[in-house]
């Protein structure tokens, strides 16, 4: 039996690789799950197993200002920053992705700028943006320099996803729409955008999560008021209680909510399409 056949008994490599896959999933999720469990430690619990009772003690400690710094404040900055970054990433990378479908003068310059944004270490960009702001006499802020730093990472990512999405878009649909008399705007808004919409949701998901969790690029650019990842980083060095894990659990719940909304809406759109396709 060979790879790629879709019938007959499974080759031994299936079982071998299935085993590898299961181990990998365990490796991926095991540690994360263990800190979620540990965040429910009883009041006397420590940073390692075994669990000493169950309580919400460490979640309370998290939001009691005195013990762990300004978690609420950091959250109130990280969330709007991620939402604005998401919106900007969607609009800008969808527009640019559409433009990139044809070669034009200067297109490769922009492409290589995006590639450099992906490749250059975040820490180096962080230094660069801080120096640029100092040079211009501006102060580093989470809504200014950190926002730009996040875009330097989310935009190239968004562009890559748009490349993957648009390369699967069959140009015949657009030609058909044009033959039927659609204007450029109608082709875009009623044919192209609806078809690639699941891809656009994926861009939004990346835009949000990359910004919400971004650390190296935020590090020097964030200014005096921290975003959540920076706050977590500070906690790793001075908080030695399960409150740290409680914070991990809280931010992961937020991430999981965002992921579920995004993936759920993609699945919903795909299912509706199949249903509509069947009705016709």
């Amino acid at each position: 039996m060979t790879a790629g056949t879709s019938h007959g008994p499974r080759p031994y490599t299936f079982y071998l690789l299935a085993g590898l896959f299961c181990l990998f999933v365990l490796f991926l999720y095991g540690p994360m799950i263990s800190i979620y469990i540990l965040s429910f430690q009883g009041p006397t619990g420590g940073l390692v197993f075994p669990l000493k009772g169950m309580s919400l003690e460490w979640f309370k400690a998290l939001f009691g200002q005195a013990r762990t710094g300004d978690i609420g404040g950091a959250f109130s900055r990280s969330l709007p920053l991620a939402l604005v970054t998401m919106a900007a990433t969607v609009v800008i990378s969808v527009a640019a992705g559409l433009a990139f479908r044809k070669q034009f003068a200067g297109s490769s310059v922009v492409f290589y700028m995006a590639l450099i944004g992906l490749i250059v270490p975040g820490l180096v960009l962080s230094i660069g943006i801080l120096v640029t702001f100092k040079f211009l006499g501006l102060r580093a802020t989470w809504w200014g320099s950190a926002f730009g730093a996040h875009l330097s990472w989310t935009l190239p990512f968004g562009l890559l996803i748009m490349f993957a999405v648009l390369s699967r878009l069959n140009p015949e649909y657009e030609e058909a729409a044009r033959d039927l008399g659609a204007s450029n705007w109608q082709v875009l808004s009623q044919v192209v955008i609806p078809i690639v919409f699941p891809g656009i949701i994926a861009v939004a998901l990346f835009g949000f999560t990359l910004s919400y969790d971004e650390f190296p690029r935020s590090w020097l650019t964030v200014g005096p008021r921290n975003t959540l990842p920076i706050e977590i980083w500070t906690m790793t060095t001075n908080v030695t209680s399960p409150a740290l894990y409680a914070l991990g659990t809280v931010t992961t719940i937020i991430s999981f909510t965002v992921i579920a909304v995004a993936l759920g809406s993609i699945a919903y759109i795909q299912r509706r399409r199949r249903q509509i396709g069947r009705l016709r």
Partner: protein
Amino acid sequence: MKLGNVSRYLQIAPLAVLLMAFVVAPLTLVLVVSFYQYQHLIGIVPDFTLVNYFDVLTNLVNWKLYLSTLKFTVFTLAITLVLGFWIAYFLVFHVRNILIAIALFLVCTVPFWTSNIIRMISWKPLLGKYGLINQGLMSAGAVDEPVEWLLFSDFAVIVSYVHLYTLFMIVPIFNSMARIDKSLLEAAVNGGATRWGVVWNVILPLCKSGIALGSVFVVTLVMGDFFVVTVMSGGLSGSVTFGIFNDLKFLNYPRASANAVVLVIIVLIFAAGIMRLVDVRKELTR
């Protein structure tokens, strides 16, 4: 397409402007500042000098940091490449139901959308001296005393890198494997190819753009990392970014910049070497 060039430039202008402002300009300034002088208590003095590069390139500690980073990069790249290839291979060629394949693929990618720092510190309760693995080993009687090298060691650093970055390998390889026409494989088999022959001579060449892209991601992420090395090695191992960090603490931006420039050059050489193997733009936009 009737869309004129003007509207095409309008569509791309915001991206171009933002990339100029937040990628090109900052990197240019880093380059400029790296040739400036640093004076204690005064800070940056805009006067041309090569002394920062001289400092960076003649410092033995710095060389050790570069070697250490290189070591981590090579190990992580090798492990994530093998893991990423076979996991993508499993999902694309062994899982027969496309919906299950997509679901399993999402299982692999979900952690990517959660906090890296949280994922990194989640190894502590497992690898620590009194962590789960040591508890297990002790109660199984495999060791008498806790194994010390699990946490705060090179081992812990590499485990974290593999944990954080294998995704960056799986996704592009999966993407290029999924495009392979399955009839090619049947043709290869009918032509007398063995199982390994198919993998080696058909699948591997056809997904080299995915491998290249994944490798570039992993190399740049590991080489630019400061935080995993700091936390997981407990300060025992270093990376290039340590030197940069130390200079920043004393506001020595010129030398930090010079070091950053050297780092970027090495990363770009790596990336260019990998990209030479494939025309990434053609692969991405086709």
